[in-house]
């Protein structure tokens, strides 16, 4: 692949932006280019990454899901219930959390499919339903009395750095890698993935091809729910507390990351590589801003600008490619 081919790719530009941001932050702050910071970043943004993979699939299928944060919150309370009240182990918590995600995600899918309603409106409604009920049941209580073994199952490979601080690859990071790889395989190497892309590209065409639209819809939203369950586990492992308002409201960050990665709401477009780069860009940007000591009030403004600029640029590039397609070569 030559530079000319690369320059046509959206991901290439993202990569250049990330590299230049890294160089900028390395010069501006001492703490940025250290292995501790890198591993911390990876752990802290694993939740964002896991959710983004699910959102990518939903966006590729031509839908949108805003209710996953509420699903993840419900899963977190269930994890806490299992581990604290029933003294279950991590695996049962994981399985139950994912099952809740799959069930609630399928609920979204059924409504979207049978009521023929826009996914945005349905998931705004279910966000309020799920979140309203979980607050009603738990009264918004904070839970932080996790057993000691739970607090210590964080690092998998531990090693000590030169100055004596211990750090390691954490379980959330492994979950993140797992999620990215299954999403990659799903999109690029399975028939189902191809179906989802085709469905997002043109729903009517996909239906007439004989694809079972119900199955695809259920799979897409259940997958999002499943990843909300995985994300819930990783989030609980990182923060060691369960609180009702920790995740709800972070939908935008996830959508921003995926859209930044080149996915479009029109469906049928988006790659896992782009999403990974989008998440990386947001993570590095946040981290750099914090290290440079910029007020957190700015974060939301910058997030919004990222969303607007990235949707505008991707709309421009897709329009260019359509115009480019109509060019007639006289020679």
């Amino acid at each position, binding site marked *: 692949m030559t530079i000319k081919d690369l320059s046509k790719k959206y991901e290439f530009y993202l990569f250049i932006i990330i590299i230049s941001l890294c160089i900028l932050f390395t010069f501006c702050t001492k703490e940025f280019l250290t292995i501790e910071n890198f591993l911390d970043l990876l752990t802290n943004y694993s939740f964002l990454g896991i959710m983004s993979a699910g959102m990518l699939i939903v966006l590729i299928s031509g839908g949108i899901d805003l209710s996953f944060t509420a699903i993840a919150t419900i899963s977190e309370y269930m994890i806490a219930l299992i581990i604290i009240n029933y003294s279950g182990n991590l695996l049962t918590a994981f399985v139950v959390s994912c099952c809740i995600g799959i069930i609630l995600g399928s609920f979204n899918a059924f409504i979207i499919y049978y009521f023929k309603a*826009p996914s*945005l409106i349905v998931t705004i*409604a279910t966000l309020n339903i799920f979140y*309203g009920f979980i607050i009603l049941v738990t009264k918004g209580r904070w839970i932080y009395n996790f057993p000691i073994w739970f607090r210590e199952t964080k690092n998998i490979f531990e090693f000590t750095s030169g100055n004596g601080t211990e750090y390691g690859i954490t379980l959330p990071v492994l979950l993140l890698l797992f999620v990215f790889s299954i999403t990659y395989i799903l999109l690029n190497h399975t028939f189902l993935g191809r179906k989802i892309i085709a469905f997002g590209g043109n729903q009517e065409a996909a239906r007439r091809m004989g694809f079972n639209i119900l199955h695809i819809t259920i799979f897409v939203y259940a997958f999002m729910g499943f990843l909300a369950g995985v994300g819930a586990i990783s989030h609980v492992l990182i923060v060691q507390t369960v609180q009702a308002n920790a995740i709800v409201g972070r939908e935008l960050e996830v959508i921003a990351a995926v859209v930044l990665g080149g996915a479009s709401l029109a469906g049928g477009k988006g790659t896992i590589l782009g999403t990974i780069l989008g998440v990386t860009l947001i993570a590095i940007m946040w981290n750099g801003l914090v290290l440079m000591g910029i007020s957190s009030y700015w974060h*939301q*403004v910058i997030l919004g600008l990222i*969303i607007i600029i990235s949707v505008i640029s991707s709309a421009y590039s897709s329009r260019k490619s359509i115009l480019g397609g109509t060019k007639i070569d006289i020679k």
Partner: protein
Amino acid sequence: MLIVILIFLTILFSIFLPGKVFSVGNFQSMAYQLPELSILAIAMMITMLSGGINLSIIATANTSGIITATILTRLITADSGNSFYISVIAILAGWTAAFLIGIVNGFIIAHIGVSPILSTLGMMTVLQGLNILYTKGYVISGFPPEILFIGNGTILGIPFALIIFLIIAFIISILLDRTPFGLSNYLIGSNETASYLSGINVKKTLIWTYAISGLLCGVASTIMISHFNSARAGYGASYLLVTILAAVLGGVNPYGGLGKVSGLVIALFILQIASSGLNLLGVSTHFTKALWGIILIFVIGLRNIKFKNNIKKLI
């Protein structure tokens, strides 16, 4: 159907809460709450009619309110005699800001071709961020009596805000039903390509749609800040779901092209009666929120069944 629900609710609350929901006091408080929500719902509705959505209505309203409030509190001091002109300027400045935000939304959607969900979502985030950045989460308060009159005063016993709302509902329903702009807006909602091919200036119409939506947010914000006697970044955060719910309940097709202001107004009455009834019953606000979600899904389901039956009849 909506009228039936309204009558049903009336009977239900008369039995369970006799003399409470339908008391003069409750009606008055409803008459003060209804206008700001209703104007925001109209702002949401006209974009939904064009097949889009405007998620930035609340943020736009708060930005506009904060601008108005800043001008009011900065310019009016104890010794400046007549505060009337300053109030007018402040309100117009807020409306202009809201109108410009709407134009930017419309431009991004119509000319650049970004989906309405994403561009208004981005706009919402930017505006919310700016609001918090500017106010630092504090409240801006202290308005002259002219401003307070808008949200709290009455003319012949009718709340002034309610009169504003009725005028706006009237203007918008004329605009939608009797003008080329309104009809093009409906047509774009049902089929954008067809309207483009039949010679409608889709881009111009869409920009106007979002600009009007923005302007309505500005008007709602004036009533809102006057009602609360303050402006803040977080007012009306729970209104977004309710405005979508009211629009869909009032018969607006979530994919665009169908819906009337009259349906929306009845839907808003239903929601207002239901919410004050639930409030008087002592139901938790979180439950109410969940209930709104359930009703929204239920209504969408009913619409779909009705739509299928209509198609069967046609065939």
